[in-house]
């Protein structure tokens, strides 16, 4: 049973990591980046190429993945997000970016799932009465640490405060001298670099394959909807819920029911608390 829970936690951590990426961009530029999970997927593929094809040292691969995805995300912001002002059209263009990344990955890396080794070992360990792989533990720890660090930074760095200001009242923040455009580009670039790095941790668990992005995108979104848009802590709770639902349903009902139940969870949360568990419903302003 504990083994099952560990699996759920690890999967949940992956989805939470995607949701964290959504949040970074959302908080700083009120944009929903459809392509966030695809960026992570590209990170996973680069990890495969670096570690398996070219046998490069982990550190080099990590840097390369972070740099490459950073550039991709920056490009996306400049080409697909900045020139578009209406949010509904931004949704179309970031979906375009997602589709483009998915198609390009298919062309470059093919359709087969690629196995990526985890550099900190692959022996099974026993923890709290459940058996798990080191990579699963690493995922859970990464998600928690990221949330704690990002929350701390957003409260204590000037940059973080600027971001929170932007989220609260964009116009007021701009009037106070916050450079909204540079922040938006920075947020995309940062979330990109992060996605590239995370590819190294995620890929050994999920494999690298071309439709990884789509499924992660949806599950990441459900995590976000449960935790609430813009809530960093909420991603952990959302991830926990989604990961456990998926794992338990797969184990006891069969894998074809997993998506259905996660979808049901999304529908329920949208009905009961449309703004998510950790975000106060904000009143409309005229």
């Amino acid at each position, binding site marked *: 049973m504990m083994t099952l829970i560990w699996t759920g936690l690890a999967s949940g951590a992956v989805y939470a990591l995607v949701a964290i990426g959504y949040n970074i961009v959302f908080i700083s530029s009120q944009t*929903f980046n*459809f392509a966030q999970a695809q960026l992570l997927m590209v990170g996973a593929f680069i990890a495969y190429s670096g570690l398996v094809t070219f046998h490069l040292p982990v550190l080099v691969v990590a840097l390369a993945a972070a740099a490459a995805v950073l550039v991709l995300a920056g490009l996306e912001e400049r*080409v*697909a997000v900045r*020139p*578009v002002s209406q*949010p*509904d*059209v*931004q*949704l*179309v*263009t970031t*979906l*375009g*970016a*997602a*589709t*483009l*990344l*998915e*198609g*390009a990955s*298919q*062309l470059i890396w093919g359709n087969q799932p690629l196995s990526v080794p985890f550099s900190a070992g692959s022996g099974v360990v026993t923890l709290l009465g459940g058996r798990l792989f080191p990579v699963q533990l690493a995922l859970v720890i990464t998600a928690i640490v990221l949330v704690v660090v990002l929350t701390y930074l957003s409260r204590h760095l000037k940059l973080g405060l600027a971001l929170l200001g932007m989220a609260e009242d964009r116009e007021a923040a701009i009037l106070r001298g916050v450079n909204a455009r540079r922040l938006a580009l920075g947020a995309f670039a940062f979330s990109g670099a992060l996605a590239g790095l995370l590819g190294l941790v995620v890929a050994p668990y999920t494999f690298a394959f071309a439709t990884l992005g*789509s*499924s992660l*995108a*949806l599950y990441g*979104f*459900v995590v976000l*909807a449960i935790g609430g*848009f813009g809530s960093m802590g909420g991603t952990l709770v959302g991830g926990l819920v989604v990961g456990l639902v998926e794992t338990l349903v797969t184990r006891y009902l069969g894998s*074809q*029911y*997993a*998506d*259905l139940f996660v*979808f049901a969870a*999304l*529908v329920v949360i*949208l*009905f009961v608390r*449309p*703004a998510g568990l950790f975000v106060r419903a904000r*009143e*409309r*302003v*005229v």
Partner: protein
Amino acid sequence: MTIWRTLRSAPSWVWPALVAIVILALPWLGLGYSAIRQVQLCCILALLVSGLNLSFGYAGQLALGQAAMYAAGAYTAGIMSVHGQTDLLEELAVSGVVALLVGLLTGIPGLRLNSWSLAMTSFFLVLLIPDLLQIFSGPTGGSNGLSGLGAVTLFGQPLSSNGYYLAIVITTVAWFAVMRNIVSSRHGVAFQVLKQSDVLASSVGISPYRMKLVAYALGGLPAGLAGALFANLDQYISPGSFDFTLATTILAGTILGGSASVYGAAIGAAIMQIGPNESTSFQQYALVFYGAFLIVGGVLLNGGIARLGRTLVGRLDRAAAVAGTAATPPGESGDGPPQEVPRLPGGVLAVRGVSKNFGGNQALLDVSLSASPGQITALIGPNGSGKTTLLNMVCGFYRTDSGEITLGEDRLNHLAPHRIALAGVARTFQTPNLPAGITVAEAVSSGRYAKARASMWSAVFRTPKYRRVRKADAAQADQVLELVGLSDVRDTEATALPLGRRRLLELAKALIASPRVLLLDEIASGLDEDEVDRIGVLLAKFREAGATVVLVEHNFRLVLEVADHIAVLAHGQVIAEGSPALIEQDPRVLSEYLGVTEESSTLTIAGEVAAITAERGEER
């Protein structure tokens, strides 16, 4: 140019109808099998794109669920057919209804959060298709697909391949006629208002949630029809036909053709079908191509091919000086004396002990005031004193923490904004916010969209009731436009008006619903003195007609001139209330406004205003 004029003199539906007749006749014009099949697939894709246009282009909600509704329609028809139910009309009807239900069931939760949540829930729906088919693999054939569909029949007779071709084209044409009738009706204007802003829509009594749901679910109908047509085309369906690539193809067709258009859907679908889908080597690059296209199309193709077409028609119209779009006749410039105002029976608006706290910031504290019919009640106060907050609470955009707001016998607080509008509260906005592409008369008529109802169905079939409501729309719009002096710009695009006239338009839009209370939010700000005078005259007329007018205003001169009763807000509380003469002398008002302390003051506000005006005069 004369040719163009002749072409334009025909009703606008004639040209698409001609094109439809040509397409119908294609098999008899010697078109080969593969070309015929392409046309059939174009029709099916056009139905899907058209459905997305309704929700994305008109209601502003991006949805990827068309593919899922399409699958629902296809499998419904397929299962019916396998069980011996091969009549095409029955299959179309049931498939359409099933797809509509899928739309309703996913739209209800999907529309609750924001514009992304529908996109995501509907995207999720597409991902669920293979799983659902696997779970119900008994009736659906699972991943192997559903085969063994019977030959399609119509009224008990088997359909020939040409007969089926006709059936597909006629169904498509019929849907486009329905779509055209919805979009060109008052519902089309309402959709544009909704797309512009939820707040705007609810201020004229439209429930944004319901309207979006209607658009999204209704978009499922053509998808269901397309599904039934597709199932019978090859008599075999499999999960592979309803994947994410299809969802992006539909979206690309929408962007290419122009999302806010009727016929753009057909053009976009035709290009997508005949262009990229044609070549087999394309499959490999499909996603890259669609992705790149969505980015480029989204950034550059604002309005799609339909917009290019509209611009071209407009330009030709102007060149040929087609009647109706010609420049407005000179003379009647709207500066004449306002007309007599019909009776505007108001109700008593009462605010009792209302408080509002925004996370520690006490915006309003125990505010009470009332506005009576036949009186102009002004609400004044420095910036940040809570005037607009109070207005927003009356309109239901904020909830009251405590206290009560009533209009006549009706309790307003805790009602949704659009219900409050329906209860008889009309308001104008400080910054006039109007959708592009509608005329002044249409913008004004939108004010009575919810007040005088005519269902979608009545618009589709242009029933006598619909015609009656439409006629009343036009008559009343003319009347209020005359009243505020905008008759001469009746057919001009509303967004093209200068600020002063747009404020008058706002006023007309508020009036047309014959509201029980009229809330005017800084209606004079940014206007020149003549325009302010004009508004003052109009307001006095409204008072004579018995209206309840609440004026939130910074323009002190206007307030002192027209108001019967003034309430002064400061720091979220009413600090003074009474007649203009009383307020002018009130020491607390003086200290709030002019920073004058009680001892030193022999000043009055009117005096100050006069002094400032005089100073300004000297400067000029």
